[in-house]
Each structure stands twice: as structure tokens, then as C-alpha cells.
């Protein structure tokens, strides 16, 4: 039996080939079966190199109070970042006025979320979000303060934080079962969307109005290769992660990248958590 090429380029196998392949398959199955017996030890996938240990998310119930406590924590976290930015003396008078207003708005939203938490039977959360503070804010601020252009990084960070806060409330307004809480988060989503847009226009004027990505072209970058921020980045309110590049380049010209995401299981403020402040 000869192997003949067929019109589409695939090979046709004869009876002898089938017998050979069958024998090989049976042999491999026997080897795999032998290796699979009496195994002991960790069954998780293997890991190569150094990586922090994986923290399993808590297995606590999620209700409206948890979602609202998380919303409060996120608002207070963002206010904390802005207060740090105001303390750097890097902002001009116009930006100081803007950031002071942003702090005021976030504290007001946090208060409202706290009141709503109590109205649904929970305990208001009056601290920042420990997950975001440890994993995002602290390394982010340290990187910005050592940056070659901290002003650029502060504005890009503020735009990203407002967008992620708006996305969080946009998600919560659908997830919350309490109608008053749902309505309040929609108002917060709207307010924080306006914040994000105002920061982009304050930073870049008309150049910061609309992302060219909406028209189908790729994202624009500045002379340093950092993605530019815009007031309008998508046709629909996105709840996807936001990439934030900040800080001075290292010896290879690489800057620190932070991925901002809406709160998930590991960042929720469960009712069982004790205040951290």
C-alpha cells in the first residue's frame, strides 16, 4: 500500500498504517495509566520560577451590604490617592481645585453608600479597601513619586481611577437588589464618568476628547510610548480592566504597568471583615 497525496494536501492512510498507529496508541495509554496510579502530593498545576503564593478568595456570602461596603471602600481609597496627590505640591492651582472637588465628591458618595449599607441591614465600612491599598495604591504611589513625569502620571492615574470607579458602580447598579441602592450607584457611575472626562479634558484639552480607538484605529501614545488617556474611550461604558503605565523607565526603557479592575471576590468587603482603620 502506498501513501498517495490527495487533492487537498492531506495524506491518506492505509491498513498497515492504521495497525501501527493503533499499537502506538494502546502503548501510550498503558504508560499514562501506569503513571496515574498511586500518585501523592500537591495536585495543583506545576509552577516555574518565583511567584507569590495564591490566596484563595474568602467563601463568605455576598449580599447588597457587601456590595455597598465595597463601594464605600473604593470611594475612600480613591479619595486617599487624591489627598496624597494634593500633598505633593505638584499640581497647579487649577488642578488643585479640581482634585479638591474630586475628594469632596468621593467622600460624599462614600457617605451615601454607608447610609445605604445600614438601610439594607449592614454595617457601614469607613475605611479604604485593604486589597486595593496593598496591591495597587501603595506600589502605584511609590512609582509615581519616583517618576520622570509625576504630573502626567497623577492625571493618568486619576482618569483611570475614575473610570474604574464608574465601571464598578455601573456593574453594581445591575447587581444590587435594593432599588434605592441601585439608583444611587447609577448616579455615582454618572458622576464618576464625568470626573474621568473632566480630568482628560483638563489635562489635554480638545486632544483628549475622543479616543481614536473608537473609530477603529489603535490607541495613541505620547512621545514616551505611554498610552494617552481620553474623555471618551468606548461607545459603551466599559467594565473591562484598564492598563495604567507610570513611573520612570528602567535600564531597559520599561515602565511599571498596573492593571486596574473592578472589585471581584478577593477585593469585596464582606460583612465578616473587621474594619482596618
Amino acid at each position, binding site marked *: 500500500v502506498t501513501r498517495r497525496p490527495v487533492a487537498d494536501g492531506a495524506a491518506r492512510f492505509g491498513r498497515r498504517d492504521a495497525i501501527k498507529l493503533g499499537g502506538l496508541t494502546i502503548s501510550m495509554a498503558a504508560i499514562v495509566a501506569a503513571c496515574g496510579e498511586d500518585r501523592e502530593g500537591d495536585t495543583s498545576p506545576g509552577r516555574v520560577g518565583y511567584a507569590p503564593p495564591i490566596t484563595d478568595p474568602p467563601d463568605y456570602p455576598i449580599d447588597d451590604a457587601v456590595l455597598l461596603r465595597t463601594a464605600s471602600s473604593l470611594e475612600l481609597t480613591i479619595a486617599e490617592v487624591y489627598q496624597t496627590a494634593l500633598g505633593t505640591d505638584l499640581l497647579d492651582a487649577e488642578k488643585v481645585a479640581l482634585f479638591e472637588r474630586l475628594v469632596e465628591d468621593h467622600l460624599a458618595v462614600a457617605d451615601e453608600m454607608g447610609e445605604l449599607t445600614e438601610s439594607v441591614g449592614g454595617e457601614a465600612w469607613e475605611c479604604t479597601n485593604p486589597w486595593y491599598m496593598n496591591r495597587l495604591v501603595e506600589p502605584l504611589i511609590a512609582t509615581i513619586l519616583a517618576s520622570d513625569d509625576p504630573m502626567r502620571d497623577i492625571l493618568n492615574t486619576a482618569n483611570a481611577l475614575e473610570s474604574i470607579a464608574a465601571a464598578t458602580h455601573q456593574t453594581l447598579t*445591575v447587581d444590587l437588589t435594593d432599588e434605592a441602592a441601585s439608583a444611587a450607584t447609577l448616579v455615582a457611575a454618572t458622576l464618576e464618568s*464625568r470626573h474621568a472626562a473632566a480630568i482628560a*479634558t483638563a489635562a489635554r484639552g480638545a486632544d483628549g476628547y*475622543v479616543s481614536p480607538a473608537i473609530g477603529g484605529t489603535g490607541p495613541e501614545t505620547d512621545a514616551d510610548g505611554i498610552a494617552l488617556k481620553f474623555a471618551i474611550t468606548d461607545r459603551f461604558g466599559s467594565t473591562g480592566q484598564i492598563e495604567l503605565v507610570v513611573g520612570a523607565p528602567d535600564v531597559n526603557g520599561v515602565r511599571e504597568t498596573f492593571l486596574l479592575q473592578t472589585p471581584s471576590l478577593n477585593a469585596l468587603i464582606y460583612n465578616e471583615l473587621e474594619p482596618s482603620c
Partner: protein
Amino acid sequence: MTPKGLSPVDLDPAAPATSRRSLIGALGAVGLAGAAALSIARPASAAPTSPTEGDKALLSQAMQLELTAEALYRTALAAGLSGVGADLAAVFAENHAAYASEIAGAAGFSADTRNDEVFDLLESAFDTSDADAFAEAAHSLENTAAATHKTLMPEYESLNARRITASIITVQARMATVLSDFGGLSSGFDDLFEPDAEALDLTAGATS
């Protein structure tokens, strides 16, 4: 920033109900609000994913409003708006067309009908090549559209209607903020972040 002044766009607010049509709309809204109040007691998992018949009636009105907004931006472009104003009008027209298409797709009908009453009311304000006049009219339109969707939000029973609406409102708020900057319309942060905007009463059409 310059003072906002009076808006050239005088949209019919949802309340108070002074005309017969708005009264009918208000009555319709009361009926829908009653249905929404019952739905609060249901767990979120019990909410239907796809739009209900009640949702579809409201979504149809929302879709028509979006097509109206698209047509108004195209009116400004046809009037000779140029530069940054034209760039914004072109993108915003596409955004509103996308909203109409998304709403129609979720509800299972065609995005082919605008709200002529609203269009006729606003057409003259958008029929301009003057950048400042365009910014003022468009700023008012975006804030009104966002407020209108916000009013409809608690009336929706399905998750998809609520998800789509929330994702539209947040971008309309951004568009309004951009237009405010473009036209120099805000006299302070209160104007910028908490603009006065009243929702259109679309429930009359939804219940007729």
C-alpha cells in the same frame, strides 16, 4: 469657563404633568412604578435576562430617542459644522446609532424609527454651523438623554435592559462633559458634575 446662560433647547420635562399627553404619561409611569416596586422584593437571580414585554415598550421609546439624537447630530453636520465640533458630531452620531442598534437588538425589533416630536422640537437648535450654539444644544441633549435613561432604569425588569441602559448613560455623561468643555459652558464644578437636566417623558408613547 464662561457662564452657561439659558439653554436654547427647551425640552419637555417629565414632571409636572400639565398637558393631557404628559398626564397620560404620568399615569403610565405610576403603573410601571407599581410593577417595579413589586420587582424589588425578588432576588436578583429571579430577574429575567431578556427584555420582558413591558421592557420592550420602554426600550422602543429609548431606541427612538437615540435615533433622534443621531439625526440631530447629522443635521448639524449637514449645516456645515466644521473642525472639532464636526469631529464630535460625527462620533456622537455614531454612538447614538450604536445605542439604538444595541437596544433594538436586545429587544428584537428594528432600529428604524425616530421620535419625530423630539426631533422637530430640537432641529432648529442643531441646524447651525456655529460651534458654540452646537455645543450648547448638544450638551443639553446629552444631559437630557442621560436623565431620561436614568428615569427608565428602575422600570426595567430584565438584566439586559438594565445593563445596556447603564452602559449608555455613563458614556452620555462623558459626552456632555466634553461638550461643556468644548463650548465653555460650565461656570463651575457644580455645572460640570451635577448639571440641571430633566428627563423626557417617554412613557406616554410606551403605554399608548
